[in-house]
């Protein structure tokens, strides 16, 4: 138990030090994502799959790099296509979760996408998204449009994107038992590299939830 508390404490500390400014949270579970850093697998990372609307317009590589570790390189060559790396995760109803994605986004639009299923894997009306936008290398900047007017980020370094969400529904719909966690490109020419995807059950600081 002490080891667990210590481990959770350490995880919480890591969460605070590495996360974007967010509500303060406590991690109350271990990471729920299998092979979160893409370190295991033969031809493709174990426990992950790709969903591409048109494989021919995507470059997908699993990179093993001495400096950057393992990561997925995802590039879309067409503007009308989406492509994601994804994994299904069992979740509890009503609780809060934190999704942390370590990525490098250097072009176009991305999406962190959570989609819900029931226990029989039937899709439900649960769809939570965090859109990402990059204007790195956008030819409009700086001469045609000042970067201050641009949506998104010009940050092409590795960074953590944090997405806190509650597995609940206030419209009376069924809450999912399974979530499909997907990260990738949303209908633009884009380049995204993903180093890790992790998810924890969390408790928000000040929350009276048990």
């Amino acid at each position: 138990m002490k080891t667990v508390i210590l481990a959770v404490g350490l995880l919480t500390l890591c969460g605070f030090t590495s996360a974007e400014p967010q509500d303060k949270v406590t991690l109350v579970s271990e990471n729920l994502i299998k092979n979160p850093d893409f370190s295991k697998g033969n031809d493709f990372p174990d426990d992950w799959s790709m969903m591409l609307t048109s494989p021919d317009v995507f470059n997908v590589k699993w990179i093993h790099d001495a400096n950057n570790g393992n990561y997925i390189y995802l590039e879309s060559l067409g503007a009308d296509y989406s492509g994601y790396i994804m994994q299904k995760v069992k979740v509890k109803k009503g609780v809060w979760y934190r999704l942390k994605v370590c990525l490098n986004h250097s072009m176009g639009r991305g999406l962190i996408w959570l989609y819900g299923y029931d226990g029989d894997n039937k899709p439900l009306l649960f769809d939570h998204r965090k859109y990402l936008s990059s204007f790195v290398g956008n030819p409009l900047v700086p001469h045609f449009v000042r970067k201050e007017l641009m949506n998104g980020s010009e940050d092409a370094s590795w960074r953590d994107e944090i997405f806190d969400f509650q597995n609940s529904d206030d419209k009376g719909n069924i809450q999912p038992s399974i979530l499909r966690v997907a990260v990738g490109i949303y209908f633009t020419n884009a380049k995204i590299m993903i180093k890790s995807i992790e998810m924890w059950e969390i408790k928000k600081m000040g929350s009276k939830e048990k």
Partner: protein
Amino acid sequence: MKKFAGTFLYITALSMAIAASPTLSVLEWQKDELVPWPVEYNLTKAGNIHRNNVSISLTKTQVKQINEWRVVVENKDSKPARLCFRLSMPCGDAGGVFWDGFQIKTGVVKTVSPKTERYIFPAVAYVNEGVISGAGYAPMTISSRFERSCQVNAGKVTLNFDSYMALDQGQKDEIYFIDYKCNGASDYTELVEQVYLSYPEWFRPAAGADQRIYGVGGYFFSSENNREYQMEEARRYGFDWEWYYNCYQKAGNFYPKQELWEDAKGYKSEAGSLRGKCDRPGTIKDWRDYNKTRIDAGNKNAAMFYYYLQQYCSSELLKGPYADAIWQNSEGKAPGPVFGWADEGNAQYAWPLHSKLGNDMREQLAMLWRDFPIAGFALDCALGHTKYYGPLLKNETGKAFDDHGRIYATEGTALAYNLDFTRNLPAKADGRKPASVINEFYTWLPMFHADGGIHEMSPFDRADLLAPRRLIAGQKPYYFWKGFRAADTLLKWNDLTVAETREGITGIIDYTLLSSLRFGIIPAVFYLTGFADIKALNPVLKTMLKAGWRAAGNVSIDGRKDPADPFALNEDIWISRYGNADESYIVLSAPDIKGMSGKAIIHTGKFGASGAIYADINGKPIINEVNTNETVINFELKNREPLILGKIAVLNPAGKNNMIEASCSVEIPGRPQTARFRFMHQPVAGTEIIKDGWPRKSSTENEVIFEKAQCFKFIPNDGFVADIVFGDNKKIDAAIAVDPEYREKNPDTVKHLEIYYDYYISRIARPLPRLADMTPYWNKKIQLPVLVPDSKELKNIKLVFILGEKAQKILMPDANYQDAILCIKNDRQLLIGFFPGKNISEYGLVMQLLERMDEKYPFIGGINAQWAPKAKLSGKVFKK
């Protein structure tokens, strides 16, 4: 590999000992590597090589400045041959610039071997101290694979261009290499320009192509219930061609076969096309009749390119009659089915060349061409690089092999074959031959065999591909697609002030305009609806596109070193050239709003325009310093406004340092056009300004004025256009007088006038709906009544348009004109008559008047994008 490398170095040393001439070496795949033949051929003359039951014959042809080598290969062995032909060009000292067909690398001091597959022009160049060496394919080559490298050895550079060829037993195939070398080159574009000059037919739409291919394109333009308004909308927008999603799509069946047809399901109406669903039950004959009506209506204004996909086939058909065509990848597997939006079912990749699918497809394309007044075909997904490893390869040429020795052919070889097939279909009665527009090519082969191409993105998406794709497309029309809806998430729309919004949109428009001019890419209709500046650009862009975008700008800026890559995204001055000797345009623009000024040296001698005098197309005077091989212009660019110069005359003899101020008035239909030339100093005796086809109006010692008469006139002048008033938005006091026989023979001429005002009033009230959704909103009460010429009602109508000779004789009996629009104004009435002649038809005159009337009754749609409401621009027109 070690054995291979050692032998390769030996051959290289031998090449360099022979010095300047390129060499051809042959490598053969044996076991698991490429092994060079001991034979090497010094490319100075034709000849033959034989080894291992493979015969190679080499023939040289001089094609202008390019050396062309036809390499014919025959495999007489009992097993497949896998060969790599390496053309090696010694280039001299290292440290120069290597262009690999796609990107450049400067200061090359060690070997560069790029492994990119896409967007590559099939040639390479090395430039050092003004000397350019180039090697590659001539455009008639069909090949699935080439590789290239810039090899550096002991400080010396050799360009290598490798062509991979696989031949089955008994097969014959051929490729065409080119090599080129010259002094005085600025950069790699010199090689591409020479390829254009040597093989011009490969870089233009084929002879007989509908010339509207050079214009503004779009899709989902049609409207079944609003055919006459469709005609007017196309006219208003300057819409030239349609990517025509036809009414029946079953992947793999292009002209419906009875055995696949279901009457209960039928075909798609226009509304159904938007949803991808068949919604009109009927027979094949019904489909044919409907299609013909729809294409006929579109064809009045726009060239209709019939949509199809070559390499996708219905999964059902691939289990049945087309089972031979099922695709195989390198693992022998068929890529999984995808649910196609165009076909209500699953489709898969299939081989469309010498297969049952391919044979039937070509037969059906010929039937489509025969039965419908289409301008040609619209090919989607013309990527070109996907590799086929299946059993039908034995029937194909253009094959290659991969790094594991496995033989394949790219889909590009199939696309090229089928594009050529449709090009060679017989001409229609109106003289048109089928052209093809392709969408989103990734490789050179489809574009070399097509007639136009789409950049299916906005100009700010993958801007790094604009130059490479444009170079591959040559002088063929190329289009921006998508429209400004792609900007939905581009700016922080919710957080911007009104001024910031305006600033951002202006920047986006300026970038679109300048990119269009830099690369000769014409924005599709989605860009101009609601954007006045984009609409205003189109006429000049179309003119320049027809003159032909050129790879080599042949313009230097005084005091600046020519850049290694003139098309680099971060260049601070954008220069482009269109046309050559007789018709030449130069465009200069500065992306920085602060602008730039300087002297542009136009190297006219390099493109056959020696002595050229340029003028600003906007009519402002420009001082030219004319020399024999160059014309120098001072320029001042600011506020991201482009300077577009058109060659308007020639100074003969060009001489030296002749300073001439030149201007040419903007062409306004119905008015004469004037070109004025003023010598800034006394010209040398015998020097004259030549302006072909324009009569000289006046001439003094220092000034010459030429004037071109208008091809038609407004009589007494065009001032009456301002007096044209139809009425208000509820009723009109206007009519058309025409005899029934004329009306029957010229229905569109009458219809345009009949609906003009109704279209305008109804559309400005509702600028955003699609045409198809406007049906309930037209107002027939404000359509012009069509009356016979002797109708008594006409006397009491304020505005009367008079069409046809019979009506003119009754209502304008004293008028005797040709090529004229006559207006007779009296206290009560404005009578307008149209008098055709040898220059212009009556229909043409009506179109000219409508265009003038559009200035008083303007409509170019309204902005329709997700971001528009936030910017308070929904339905409005934006002008900078």
